């Protein structure tokens, strides 16, 4: 065994050697300690191979030992792609390797490595084309190469939470600079949120066992504990959006699986530190080749000895420190190769773990561990998202922040290098600047809000950036050695692939990325972007700065769909009468957000009862807008196609709305309740859309009009009482209104007290063709009024009817439904309501298109009856020309009419077929063709409307 747990506790270790945890890895039982990550526990147990690479299925071991380690993606239970370098070990975890068959040790697809030279990046674009009929089979094989874990389709959407915050300063990254920034901002009175990606604050100090580092970390932690700074660990600022709107995912939460925090930060301090960059050489992806950071983390955080005999390739002080840590941990240092002196590592050999390293000059050194410190990548993602385009600095061999907006400040490794004291001082100065600027932003925001408390005092000045800049340590530009190796470990893309792609013409970073898929895998370019750019630059013979980098897009770290979705609110609405419906055998139907009664067992019987006695329907979802003000009539004239100026108080009128393209948008009745008070009703499905439409006109086109709009759909329960005995029934429960036909005529509105409930609006309209009273009751009393009507009408044969009964009756009456009998192409005149389109009005929505439509042949909505009264053509059946496939129209609504005892339809037909008596051919969905006839009127029943005016 070459890896294992160090016998003695390390001063900085985070494991509790007293708390043993047991878990399974690929079905076998393993042990670890509280504080271990999955990877550290497995490494301590001697495991060397954690995954197989995507394409060649090469064995892969630890590379960086943190969240970004591309080789440490594992399946934990039903959770795929878990970062084993980051996820804390829990007792009983079921951990397994992903995308291997039959096992991690013996993976059959490793055979791909033998033919690797033929499988260059993008090879699939060049083959599998002939014979074309075999491509689906090829595709199925290719799809088996999809990397990643497995989804368990039965995974429930567990509890996820969201939180909104309005902190003054958010600090992303709790290394020494970030902590100092948070402390300084807090000391200056700012409310500060400090967000740390790892499980504890401290950054690189956490795995630095030197006394000065240990002391500094203890001091910083104590200061944080004593401060008002809110600290979130195991949390990541995933995105910076417009105006410092931040997404933050909190992975460790006591109750929720994860929590998404949405914070509006007045200033954002970006302090993520640096990510160590792999070095490209042959065999750089072999288990046993690790970054210097990984070596230090393994030793100092988890007490894991990463190998027995190491070669250390170092080009910086951190690599030197790693060598010291290894030595202290009892790892034999076979050689230290100094990159600063121009020495290089060329390749490794051995299987699966590195057993021999070849260094420049051809020297071969036996070892089981190769630790590499070749340079750093600045994770500039959040700066990118703020619009900054980081600039490459060749002497320092990394990118730096360029010129981020004033409310985004970088510190730590993104800003430069320095001693620990210098980094801390820069962090503190950044925190002070952030607090000052946050105060200025707060003042501005308060001044912007119209009705807020008057802003006291002068706006604080925008603090100038007077921080003492950090220096930049020189660093050799180490990207690729004298051999080719792996660049993107997630995607199995090597430097050879990238240079070949560039040679083939994919020579910009974006093209090469798209062609080779480099940087597109789960580590999101954190490790490989700069090496990718370097390979392209080398192929083009240009500098890294000239090639430039790709745009880093959100999220900074992947976050689960569960966290984004939160608790998954998708509310449904029911009316206040729903308990009665449920107690009375309702069959419901979903209509928009509403669950509403479809029928109560026998819709045909409900229809017959309404036609002969009286029925009640709950029409609460009907959209209702309360309109008040002197300019309501103007608004109605603008929105409806007909005229509204002369509507008297106490009257209601039907209107049709068209969109600006002349297409029917909605319809409904609006009543005038008082001089400057109207109630508009819309279709149920159009309620939300019409409200937006009204507000859009008022706010953007006619802001000078005085109209106050209140949506009151749910403030009233709406009940339609329909049938020849409706007046008798309503009169039994209504006070204060004369219901006689002379006093309260069709299309009139009254305010009434119904069943003791004052303030009900009642109007005489109806969709069923019967004498109807539609009563809008304050919602809290809806159930009471419904029950009172039911009780009072017992002897009249009152019964409920649902949406289906209403649909049958409206079809018998030939009323069209917007969105069913009309569609996205139906212009106003096609409905047969041409006379309601008043082109002599000044202006109204859709007028130009409707004026254009005058006299043009348009498809028309017509009533249709099949020749065979027993055939009900399915809705959407096409009307065709004889035996051909030429489409001349379609059936839009069809039912068997209980009243007429025959099938009835509405349909849209070409203009030449719209005249009454025209014979049609309907193609049933079964393929059969049947005859049908266009009717003279839309109404199949009571065309003169005697019943509803009674």
């Amino acid at each position, binding site marked *: 065994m070459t890896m294992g747990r160090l016998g003695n506790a390390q001063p900085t270790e985070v494991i509790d050697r007293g708390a043993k945890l047991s878990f399974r890895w690929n079905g076998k039982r393993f042990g670890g300690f509280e504080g271990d990550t999955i990877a550290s526990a497995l490494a301590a147990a001697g495991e060397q191979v954690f995954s197989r690479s995507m394409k060649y299925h090469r064995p892969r071991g630890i590379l960086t030992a943190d969240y970004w380690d591309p080789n440490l993606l594992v399946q934990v239970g039903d959770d795929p792609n878990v970062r084993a370098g980051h996820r804390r070990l829990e007792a009983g975890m079921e951990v397994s390797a992903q995308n291997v068959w039959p096992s991690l040790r013996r993976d059959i697809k490793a055979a791909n490595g033998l033919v690797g030279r033929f499988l260059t990046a993008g090879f699939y674009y060049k083959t599998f084309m002939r014979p074309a009929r075999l491509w689906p089979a090829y595709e199925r094989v290719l799809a088996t190469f999809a990397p990643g874990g497995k989804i368990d389709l039965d*995974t429930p959407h567990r509890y996820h939470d969201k939180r909104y915050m309005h902190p003054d300063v958010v600090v992303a990254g709790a290394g020494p600079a970030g902590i100092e920034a948070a402390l300084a901002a807090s000391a200056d009175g700012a409310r500060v949120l400090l967000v740390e990606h790892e499980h504890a604050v401290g950054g690189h100090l956490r795995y630095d066992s030197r006394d000065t580092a240990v002391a500094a970390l203890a001091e910083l932690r104590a200061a944080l504990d004593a401060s008002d700074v809110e600290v979130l660990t195991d949390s990541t600022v995933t995105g910076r959006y417009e105006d410092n709107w931040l997404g933050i995912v909190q992975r460790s939460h006591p109750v929720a699986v994860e929590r998404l925090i949405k914070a509006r930060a007045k200033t954002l301090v970006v302090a993520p530190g640096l990510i160590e960059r792999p070095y490209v050489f042959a065999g750089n992806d072999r288990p046993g080749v690790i970054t210097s950071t990984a070596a230090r983390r393994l030793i100092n955080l988890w007490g894991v000895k990463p190998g027995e005999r190491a070669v250390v390739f170092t080009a910086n002080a951190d690599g030197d420190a790693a060598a010291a840590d290894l030595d202290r941990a009892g790892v034999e240092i076979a050689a230290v190769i100094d990159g600063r002196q121009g020495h290089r590592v060329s390749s490794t050999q051995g299987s699966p773990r590195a057993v021999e390293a070849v260094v420049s000059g051809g020297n071969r050194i036996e070892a089981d561990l190769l630790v590499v410190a070749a340079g750093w990548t600045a994770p500039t993602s959040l700066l990118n998202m703020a619009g900054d385009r980081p600039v490459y600095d060749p002497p320092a061999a990394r990118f730096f922040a360029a010129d981020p907006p004033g409310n985004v400040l970088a510190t730590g490794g993104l800003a430069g290098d320095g001693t620990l004291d210098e980094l801390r001082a820069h962090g503190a100065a950044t925190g002070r600047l952030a607090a000052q600027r946050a105060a200025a932003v707060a003042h501005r925001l308060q001044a912007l809000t119209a009705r807020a408390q008057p802003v006291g005092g002068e706006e604080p000045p925008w603090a100038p950036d007077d921080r003492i800049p950090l220096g930049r340590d020189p660093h050799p530009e180490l990207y690729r050695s004298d051999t080719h190796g792996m660049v993107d470990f997630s995607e199995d893309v090597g430097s050879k692939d990238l240079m070949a792609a560039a040679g083939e013409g994919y020579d910009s970073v974006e093209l090469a990325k798209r062609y080779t898929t480099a940087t597109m895998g789960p580590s999101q370019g954190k490790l490989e972007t700069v090496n990718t750019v370097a390979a392209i630059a080398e192929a083009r013979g240009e500098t890294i700065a000239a090639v430039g980098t790709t745009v880093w897009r959100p999220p900074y770290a992947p976050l689960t769909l*569960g966290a984004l*979705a939160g608790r998954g609110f998708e509310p*449904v609405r029911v009316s206040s009468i729903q308990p009665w419906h449920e107690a009375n055998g309702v069959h419901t139907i979903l209509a928009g957000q509403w669950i509403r009664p479809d029928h109560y067992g026998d819709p045909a019987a409900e229809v017959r009862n309404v036609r002969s006695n009286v029925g009640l329907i709950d029409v609460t979802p009907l959209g209702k807008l309360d309109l008040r003000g002197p300019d309501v009539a103007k608004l109605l004239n603008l929105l409806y196609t007909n005229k509204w100026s002369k509507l008297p108080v106490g009257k209601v009128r039907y209107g049709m709305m068209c969109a600006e393209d002349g297409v029917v948008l909605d319809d409904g009745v609006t009543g005038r309740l008082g001089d400057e008070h109207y109630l508009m009703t819309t279709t149920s499905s159009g309620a939300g859309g019409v409200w937006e439409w009204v507000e859009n006109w008022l706010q953007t086109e006619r802001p000078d009009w005085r109209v106050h709009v209140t949506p009151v759909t749910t403030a009233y329960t709406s009940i339609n009482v329909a049938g020849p005995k409706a007046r008798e029934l309503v009169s039994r429960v209504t006070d204060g209104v004369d219901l006689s036909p002379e006093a309260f005529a069709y299309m009139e509105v009254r305010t009434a007290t119904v069943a003791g409930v004052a303030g009900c609006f009642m109007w005489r309209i109806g969709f069923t063709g019967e004498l109807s009273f539609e009563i809008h009751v304050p919602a809290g009393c809806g159930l009471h009024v419904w029950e009172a009507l039911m009780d009072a009408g017992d002897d009249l044969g009152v019964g409920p009817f649902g949406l289906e009964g209403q649909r049958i009756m409206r079809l018998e009456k030939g009323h069209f439904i917007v969105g069913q009998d009309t569609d996205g192409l139906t212009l106003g005149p096609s409905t047969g309501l041409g006379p309601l389109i008043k082109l002599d009005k000044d202006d109204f929505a859709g007028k130009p298109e409707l004026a254009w439509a005058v006299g043009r042949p348009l498809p028309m909505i017509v009533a249709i009856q099949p020749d065979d009264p027993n055939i009900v053509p399915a809705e959407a*059946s096409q009307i065709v020309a004889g035996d051909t496939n030429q489409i001349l129209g379609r059936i839009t609504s069809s039912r068997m009419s209980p009243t007429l005892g025959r099938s009835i339809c509405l349909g849209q037909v070409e203009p030449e077929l719209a005249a009454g008596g025209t014979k049609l051919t309907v*193609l049933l969905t079964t393929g059969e063709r049947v005859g049908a006839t266009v009717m003279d009127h839309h109404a199949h029943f009571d065309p003169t409307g005697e019943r509803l005016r009674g």
Partner: protein
Amino acid sequence: MGSLGRRLGRGPAKYSAAALVWRGLRGGQWPRIWRDAELKRSYDAVIVGGGVHGLATAYYLARNHGIKDVAVLDKAYLGSGASGRNTAIVRANYLTPEGVAFYDRSLQLYNTMATDLNINVMFSERGHLTLAHNDSSLRTMHWRAEVNKLQGVDSSVIGPDEIKKVAPSLDTSSHPRYPILGALYHPPGGIVRHDAVVWGYARAADCMGVEMHQKTEVLDILCEGGDGTDGKGPGGRVVGVRTSRGDISTPVVVNCTAGWASLISAMAGVRLPITTHPLQAAVTEPVKVFLPTVVVSGSLHVYISQTDRGELVFGAAVDPVATYSIRGSLEFTEELAGHVLELMPGVSRMRLLRQWSGLCDMTPDYSPVMGFTGVDGFLVDVGWGTYGFKAAPVSGEQMAEAVATGRTPELIAPFALSRFDTGELVGEKGAAAVGH
């Protein structure tokens, strides 16, 4: 393609398994997909925009009409705009007979593209499900199915049990808010590797002599004889293009841009009734393939497919606000995730890897603007909203014919710019806006 290569007398650039093996053994470098040419001072035609539409137009100009002295200009790299940002769904199950005919032709061209262009565009004919969550959308699905059947397009409405068989990850159980009542199932629909389409057209056009010029921004269109300033506008004619790399003289300029269509057209004095909206999309980390079809839900404003690489690709409706900004929003990902989990609760542990945004040029009637403009020699193929990728092959074919013959082909006649003067808008709102 061997024949393509021969036409230019170039080496054996043919892509095949045998060629892969041969080069693998020899270690040889593949030739460039397109040449790096010097920008000439004059071309027979200049195409603005190196996306799928512009490249397809160039390809068909050369292949079908022998017009090869053509330059395709792009201010960034080929495929950098909407061509590489869309969710790569293709289908032909439209609502109007005109729409069906147009997109069916496009689907045919996609079907044979791999062999026509000798590049594997990985057209995955995996079937396309449009879900219905209420009886009104179910009715629309039936309508589309009936129209499609009469046009010979394979399309039918299937119920929850069958949906479960086609896409087991969908939650077809009873569900209060968004029950899955049925779906329009369109087996010929699928996804295509969009970048490969860009490269395929570019490579094939290059073989015939067309030049691709990246990082070449069009600064102005040079006109004479028009009503407007500098001879631009109706009645005038195109004489050249001013680019960031110098002036080019040409009698024909085709505007094949998306996102900048109205700005480029304004350079010729042509006003377009276009507003530009961002459309956002996102992709997850890969998991083993579990979703075999394309799934679309109009009510939930989401479309989902899983690539052969295992990533779920999501798209949505265009953002409501007109803007040229292509920064994504957090709210988009939240709403998207919520809607996806309504449909497939089992994917709650999948991780969103990347979000991005592209620009869509929206017209009042959700239909493109294609053909001649009133400025002689200035043609447009723009206003493609959210459905440009699906239409690229047929658009290129038709635009090339318009350029070559000087006449508007019948298939694109309804999309003429003049319809906004005559009022004869195209009824594609219902057809094209029904989703992806």
